């Protein structure tokens, strides 16, 4: 393992050992506090363009398997760990993480004081960084020079580049419901396999699986699919998925999003939540260092119940921008009070900032899918006026 560095635009340098692809990585440096679920995190399209720091120091303990990927590839730009396990142990472990990194062309910097790094990010906010081998940079102190960073530009967070990179290019329907629909034979509805359109801004596979498992037929469509095309698919409901970057990158599409969400029962998740909020008049802003982990408490306002959620977002809906005639806040973060869920006052539209599909993280909010499906099956053939 050769020596390498993580350089931050804010000037800090962390030394470590390089594993995986032999190439430079540039990205927004963020941290995730989950103690398990590294495979899901590494393959989550929402991390596209980011260098993820794992706060838990031992990563890779149970290896890599063919089931837990949230997409078909490693999506993050680079990763920083305390220690990457070279001798994993798990009956499902089938592949080597290092091979996966090489295959994906992703670099990992290990043996880093990740706690110190997490604290830097916490104090300074999400910051641009680069992973370099010692051969690539003789003097890591260069990180302090603006010229150094000029050559290491990233597509802006509010550029469509990120979503475009991870969203599907073609419409695809998943109908092998029986494979997933275990134990749902008790459903008495005539329409026992509701059709859901999943607008893909970089969705996690678990989102698709949750829907299939609940007995839905799912059609995944590219992010730019216009309302008319969706209408042709005759969905019972639409889900706006998670995805990378700033929701404002999708500003040109907000009108269409508004139209879709006014036409079909809609559920927005993570980036999808932010988009629905924007489409219906609210604003979003960047959090200092985001919420990334599997232990974020949110409170359901109506019941007072607190649930632990899986989260991964750097942007948030601004509380003051929410028009109380349009939206009702349904969930709130217990720690910082930020908006975690919205419900439209007239439309069958709701959205949540966290990830009910879990993977990684607790499945305490999985009922949100259930509720959504119940709702769309009941709504049935109801017609929607186009507003």
């Amino acid at each position, binding site marked *: 393992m050769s020596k390498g560095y993580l350089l931050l635009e804010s000037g800090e340098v962390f030394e470590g050992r390089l594993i995986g692809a032999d190439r430079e990585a540039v990205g927004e440096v963020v941290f995730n506090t989950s103690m398990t679920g590294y495979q899901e995190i590494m393959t989550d399209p929402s991390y596209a363009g980011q260098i993820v720091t794992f706060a838990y*120091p031992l990563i890779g303990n149970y290896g890599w398997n063919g089931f837990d990927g949230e997409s078909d590839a490693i999506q993050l730009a680079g990763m920083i760990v305390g220690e990457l396990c070279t001798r994993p142990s798990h009956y499902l472990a089938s592949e080597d993480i290092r091979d996966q990194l090489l295959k994906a062309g992703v670099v990992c910097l290990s043996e880093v004081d990740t706690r110190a790094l997490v604290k830097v990010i*916490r104090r300074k906010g999400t910051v641009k960084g680069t992973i370099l081998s010692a051969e690539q940079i003789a003097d890591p102190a260069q990180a302090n020079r603006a010229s150094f960073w000029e050559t290491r530009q990233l597509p802006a967070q509010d550029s469509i580049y990120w979503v475009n990179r991870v969203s599907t290019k073609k419409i695809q329907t998943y109908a092998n419901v029986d494979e997933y629909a275990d134990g749902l034979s008790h459903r008495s509805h005539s329409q026992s396999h509701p059709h859901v359109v999943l607008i893909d801004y970089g969705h996690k596979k678990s989102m698709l699986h949750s829907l299939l498992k609940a007995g839905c037929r799912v059609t995944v469509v590219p992010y730019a699919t216009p309302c008319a095309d969706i209408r042709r698919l005759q969905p019972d409901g639409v889900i706006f998925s998670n995805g990378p970057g700033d929701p404002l990158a999708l500003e040109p599409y907000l009108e269409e999003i508004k139209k879709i969400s006014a036409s079909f029962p809609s559920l927005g998740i993570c980036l999808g939540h932010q988009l629905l909020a924007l489409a219906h008049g609210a604003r979003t802003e960047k959090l200092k260092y985001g919420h990334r982990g599997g232990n974020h408490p949110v409170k359901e306002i109506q019941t007072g119940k*607190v649930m632990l959620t899986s989260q991964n977002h750097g942007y948030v809906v601004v509380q003051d921008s929410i028009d109380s005639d349009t939206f009702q806040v349904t969930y709130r973060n*217990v720690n910082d009070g930020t908006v975690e869920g919205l419900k439209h006052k007239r439309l069958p539209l709701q959205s949540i900032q966290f990830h009910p599909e879990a993977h990684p993280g607790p499945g305490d909010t999985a009922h949100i899918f259930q509720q959504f499906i119940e709702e769309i099956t009941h709504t049935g053939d109801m017609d929607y006026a186009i507003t």
Partner: protein
Amino acid sequence: MNKLKGKSHRLQKILVIGSGPIVIGQAAEFDYAGTQACQALKEEGYEVVLVNSNPATIMTDTHIADRVYMEPLTVDFVTKVIRQEKPDGLLATLGGQTALNIAVELEKTGVLAEENVVLLGTDIEAIRKAEDRKLFRQLMHELGEPVPQSDIVHSVEEALAFVDQVGYPVIIRPAYTLGGTGGGIAENEQMLIDFVSSGLRYSPVKQCLLEESIAGFKEIEFEVMRDAAGTCLTVCDMENIDAVGIHTGDSIVVAPSQTLSERDYQMLRNAALKIIRALRIEGGCNVQFALDPDSDQYYLIEVNPRVSRSSALASKATGFPIARLAAKIAVGYRLDELSNPVTGRTYASFEPVLDYVVTKIPRWPFDKFQSANRTLGTQMKATGEVMAIGRNFEASLLKAVRSLETGTDHLESAEIKQLNNEQLREKCVRADDERLFAVAEALRRGYTVEEIWEWTKIDPFFLNKIKRVIDLEDVVRANPFKLDHMAEAKQKGFTDRKIAELWSVTEEEVRSFRKQKALYPVYKTVDTFAAEFEAYTPYYYSAYEEENESISSTKKKVIVLGSGPIRIGQGIEFDYATVHAVWAIKEAGYEAVIINNNPETVSTDFNISDKLYFEPLYVEDVLDIIEHEQPEGVIVQFGGQTAIQLTTVLEKEGIPILGTHQSHIDAAEDREKFERLLAELNLSAPPGRTVTSVEEALETADGLGFPILVRPSYVLGGRAMEIVYNKEELLDYMHKAVKVNPDYPVLIDRYLMGKEFEVDAVCDGDDVFIPGILEHIERAGVHSGDSIAVYPPQTIGEDVKNRIIEMTTRLAKGLEIKGLLNIQFVLYRDEVYVLEVNPRSSRTVPFLSKITGIPIANLAAKVILGHTLQALGYPGGYHPEEKFVSVKVPVFSFAKLHRVDITLGPEMKSTGEVIGRDVNLEKALYKGLLASGMSIPAQGTVLVTVADKDKEEVMDIVRGFHQLGFKLLATEGTAKCIQKAGLPVMSVNKLNKAPNILDSIRRGEVHFIINTLTKGKQPARDGFRIRREAVENGVVVFTSLDTAQAMLRVLETITFSAIPMPPSASRSKKEVLTSES
């Protein structure tokens, strides 16, 4: 209690039940939990009433609760407290199984309903469902949660029938017992019969659960919490390195789990939360799982609907105070209303995440109990545990190893090295306390991870990590003074000493090389959320990494060394003193810094000190912290022998030792120096000598005359100490018990069979203050920790007291004590001798503090910091005696330790203590004996079988029992003597004929046994078997005539005997006494 928000206002007064004495399976963790709970309730403005019989705890300090009852934890006594105090609520889920069982009983007797007492927290129904195997299984079936095939049996026959269905091996778990008492894994019919019959005896409901064995599965524990609003969360999950089959209390445990995938983790988390929802837990709960290493099949093993040893570990491992929050939930708070004390800004309704690895290793008492069966199984045997924190597994494990204080600072052991390959394999297969070292040695000898996995079922993940330690040894060895390799070794937890050995240089050379290269540890914070938020916890552990978070303040500070894991001879009493010392240091205006590694105790709660370093009490770790903190000095007096042992090295390094000077500590510890001092002070000790050979020993014994007391030098809790009555026994001892040579001398003293006294004193250099004198019920020869101690002394006059006071004063001044001093005296033929001097806090400090109301440890700490006793309001001299009589009664855990002889002797065997306090000795003794767990039947049968030397003396006691109406049963020789004394006695066969004594004991025909030791200590001997049989059947055995005499006195006061009117005026004195009582 239907309410939506905040605490209940309906409640005003809350009764908290503690867990009683420390026994194996229920230890200091409940002092930690109980203290937190009482404080949490008090800060809410509730009036808190506490019942607990354990005087060695912080929780029974009178400022922790509003009123403290140190009464026996029996339904009768707790009922009395309830009737007297009339509390509104009862909190029983923080006092272990003891408190929970009492709550269940109180509910049954109807007292709670009668007195309108609400059970707070988890309700009785939930407790029953979790605790009763049948109800539990039923619930699991309803929830669709898998449990291993099992059956509840009430007899051996039912057990055999079950095994016919499922086959061997099967696990036997007695219902409602502590630490799995009486259980085990049976591989065959004989084992099954043994386990089931003992299990049925221990189970208060006479039930055993038989379970198909899932040995070899991963064992995973979840600590979960739920509030009344239904919010559920996981505080921590923990993975046992030892697979299912070894009690979790005896397993090496890591947190968080290391080999669970995200899917595995969430699957078990979901199951745990589903279960606590179904049980409607309000507070903390522990859920144990077995997980197949080759599939996602899992089973529920057990649910504990209360805080537990594991929750204490989880609290320390995460920084999340489970007990405190459980108490708040019990009075109605919701988790999201409670702030996370670590940030003060975020809330308790989140799941902690770690950015380090925690390792717990149990501390077993096998160094004391040489004859004990060391094999680990479903019955817990450890008395305590250590925890260590590291940024990687290897460092965490190695730190834990050196925290154990078992003489090794690395994954190696001299004894294990001696084993041949076959023995080594055997040791790995048959798990015992040394398996970790055997595994490391096997790897060193080239066995593969696969082979060792076959033997042990320890997950290859852990074996590979251990292998990395072994591989790193070779790398370091091959690269002397190479900084890179050294840095890696330090990161992985190697000590300087180990590196020195690998480089064949001295430790000093390694240390100075390390300093020269500026290779120092940094200190990281334990903050519950992996640095995501700003934390204010002053809770640290070391790591060889970049950023240091423990910023040394400019305030004057003092470091207190704690006492490490709870073990026999060094128990919770030392933690008590440590905590008081920390408080005193803070009061005196210094910053108090503590170093300790025991996750169970109050001292390692992060809010006790200004700074807590959760680190090994190992010289290198301690020196690094001192170097980092630059304190005014270090206090070693409160951490027992653990801290005292570090004195010499600290002194050598030029670290100021506050309090008694190191040379004086040495003078008290070193035999010859001590003898010189006694001679100078003109004080007498039993005559004796230090010998370095067998010949010398015989010669010395001849000169002194038998009986003699023999022991190796520098002992802890009387280890390997024996009373020897003749030459043969002496030879036997010298050959078997000790390795005598000039490096390991043996001490021989004349054994003076007299009355023993114990004194704790505080000296500021000028004045000597003596809070009290304790008199022992058992004569000298029984270890002071195992004796019943009485305050104030009952049998001596002012004259003897004055002599003791005067001798104490002279010794304190002679040793230039600054701080605490503990002395044991023996009164023999009207002469007072000094038996032992400890220049430190002692086992009796908390007991004496409580009964006299004098904050002894606090005074000592302040004196150490330079205050005078005069200024503190305690001028020298003997504190006026209190009116009440208090007794300290030892509590043993013999039922948990098979093959251990229960005979009291110079080696300490007790694990805990209780207090009995009342207006006179008899009443105090009654409470004390009862609280210690003895059943005190007013009638029944006494079995007497004593050594010839005791036959004459025992007659008075036998007569006493007879007069109270007890039937007498005796073995042949003893029976003859009793007959000769004119008392009716039934003779019973010794063990060579049937039916014999053992049958009588098993049939429950015997209520007390008086048995004194005959020659030899082989387990095969009759006396041993009688005593073990008694322990296993819960029959009270007196191995000291003095204890029997004490029990007799108690019985005399609680029993009325029928006495005919005298035909003439000649009545014996005894009868008068009896009839008057």
